[in-house]
């Protein structure tokens, strides 16, 4: 019983230090990076937050949501729609408003779609996302296919004093990294709380959870709303970074991409979402590179797709499962813990 109450299980230690090392590397990266690198990694960190939001649903609760981009896009559109046209909005109300918009749509989407299960849930979440997509795409509200520009980025100030300028790419990089670390720690704490264990139970066996006395619907709905809020946060950062939004932010392509990120990284692990977002972005950059592929680079979807198929076929537990897979191959035996257990 003593070991159980300890600060950290011995087998969790390498995972903890791996994650810590990733964050330290990200913090040190601006010291060596140029403009292009800063811009790329900022974007990938935003996708990592987005992937973490979906990991809470798919990996932690077992709810495969195929409409996550709608929540991301609503968070992003809220930034542009709520900002005054020619002056800076304060981040102190714009960020909560943007996150709350996404959470509100998640509440609406979740309360109805969670009445279905399995493949129907996937389809219903897709339908809700498409609904939001067409509202943005085809009504005056969303500014159509061309999207909308954000004229002035929001200000981060205490009283009259500006704390940080979001126009400075390096400052924005730091803000994004801080958000990523905060989201990661928040989810890590959440998942080991009673709420998080209940979500794990719902993923493992919802019928048994109900028989035990857990009303599972409110748990799933709460997870959905939290996930929506985090996706909204990612959307907020994305809109501020580019000062531009368009309907593609809500498209099913993006919902699919973020699903692929967490599958590639390894479902059921927070660091899987982190690794998956980076792997996906690097693969995309690699296959898009004209220096490597020449004229063929415009067919980057093909190379990316084939690589992902190969990864899913060869790495059943994603990239996070690689060390275990190698160890198993080297020692010729499986480790004691079955997959899908405690994270």
């Amino acid at each position, binding site marked *: 019983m003593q070991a159980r109450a300890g600060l950290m299980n011995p087998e969790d230690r390498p995972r903890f230090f791996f994650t810590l090392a990733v964050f330290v590397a990200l913090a040190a990266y601006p010291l060596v990076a140029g403009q292009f690198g800063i811009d790329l990694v900022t974007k990938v960190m935003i996708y990592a937050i987005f992937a973490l939001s979906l990991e809470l649903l798919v990996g932690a609760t077992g709810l495969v949501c195929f409409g996550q981009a709608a929540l991301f896009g609503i968070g992003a559109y809220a930034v542009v729609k709520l900002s005054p046209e020619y002056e800076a909005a304060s981040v102190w109300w714009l960020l909560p408003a943007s996150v709350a918009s996404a959470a509100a749509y998640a509440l609406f989407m979740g309360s109805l779609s969670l009445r279905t299960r399995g493949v129907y849930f996937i389809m219903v979440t897709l339908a809700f996302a498409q609904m939001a997509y067409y509202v943005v795409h085809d009504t005056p509200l969303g500014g159509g296919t061309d999207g909308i520009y954000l004229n002035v980025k929001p200000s981060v100030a205490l009283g009259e004093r500006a704390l940080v300028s979001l126009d400075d790419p390096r400052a924005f990089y730091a803000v994004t990294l801080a958000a990523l670390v905060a989201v990661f720690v928040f989810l890590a704490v959440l998942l080991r709380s009673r709420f998080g264990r209940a979500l*794990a139970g719902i993923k493992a066996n919802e019928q048994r959870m109900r028989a035990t006395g857990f009303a599972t619907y409110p748990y799933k709905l709460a997870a959905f709303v939290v996930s929506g809020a985090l996706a909204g946060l990612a959307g907020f950062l994305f809109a501020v970074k580019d000062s531009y939004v368009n309907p593609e932010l809500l498209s099913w392509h993006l919902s699919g991409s973020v699903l692929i990120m967490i599958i590639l990284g390894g479902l059921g692990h927070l660091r899987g979402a982190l690794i998956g977002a980076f792997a996906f972005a690097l693969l995309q950059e690699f296959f898009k590179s004209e220096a490597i592929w020449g004229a063929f680079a415009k067919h980057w979807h093909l190379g990316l797709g084939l690589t992902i198929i190969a990864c899913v076929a060869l790495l059943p537990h994603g990239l996070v499962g690689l060390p275990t897979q190698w160890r198993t191959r080297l020692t010729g035996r499986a480790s004691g813990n079955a997959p899908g*257990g405690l994270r």
Partner: protein
Amino acid sequence: MSEAQPDILLKGRDITRRWGGLVAVDGVSIDLLRGQVHAVIGTNGAGKSTLVNILSGEIAPSSGSVELLGRDVTAWSQPRRAQAGLGRSYQRTTLYHGFTVFENCRLAAQARHPRPWAWWERADRCARSNDAALAAVQRTGLFDVLDRTAGLLSHGQKRQLEIAMCLATDPQVLLLDEPLAGMGAEETDRMLALLADLKAGHAILLVEHDMDAVFRIADRITVMVNGAVIASDAPQAVRASAEVQAAYLGGH
């Protein structure tokens, strides 16, 4: 407090369930008393599991009522009934296969003090659910395999864990759907000893095919055929009934 509680902990009245034209459960009434093992026997398809599902709230009856600890719970959801003291096990083992034995029980115990909004508190530091889980594990004889992944247990141990998870929620009524299925003689003996031990504090409904076991443990037996009760009496009387002999018991 215990004097105030009725001895009939669960009362089913005229429970009927139709699936289209098929009547799976036909006007069944059943009482579960504290200190009694009430066995429900019958051929496959007699409606025993459907009856358990209705009593536990997993499916709604077409008509009839269920009373738990003196309150009408017919309209209550399954989680609410479980919260009120109704535990059940499943015919097909339903565990959290990737979790350890202890975590299976701890999560079950958590249902009693869920604190779903205490997001900053670690679940594994919850003393109340840890204690309840440990007690359930010890009572069912699984202490030696506390840290083993549930999916790696032997069949008999999995069935024991099913019971342990029920006990961890501190129920008053236990609905056990074939807890002895697929067990060897030794495992059966152990499980029957456990049921005998649990009897004092609980009302137990036992759905079971192993007739030797049923006659060893049951205080009352209800026989179902085609969804209806054809006999409900003490074991000796049921054994002696010509109708039951003809319908079901054969050589016993």
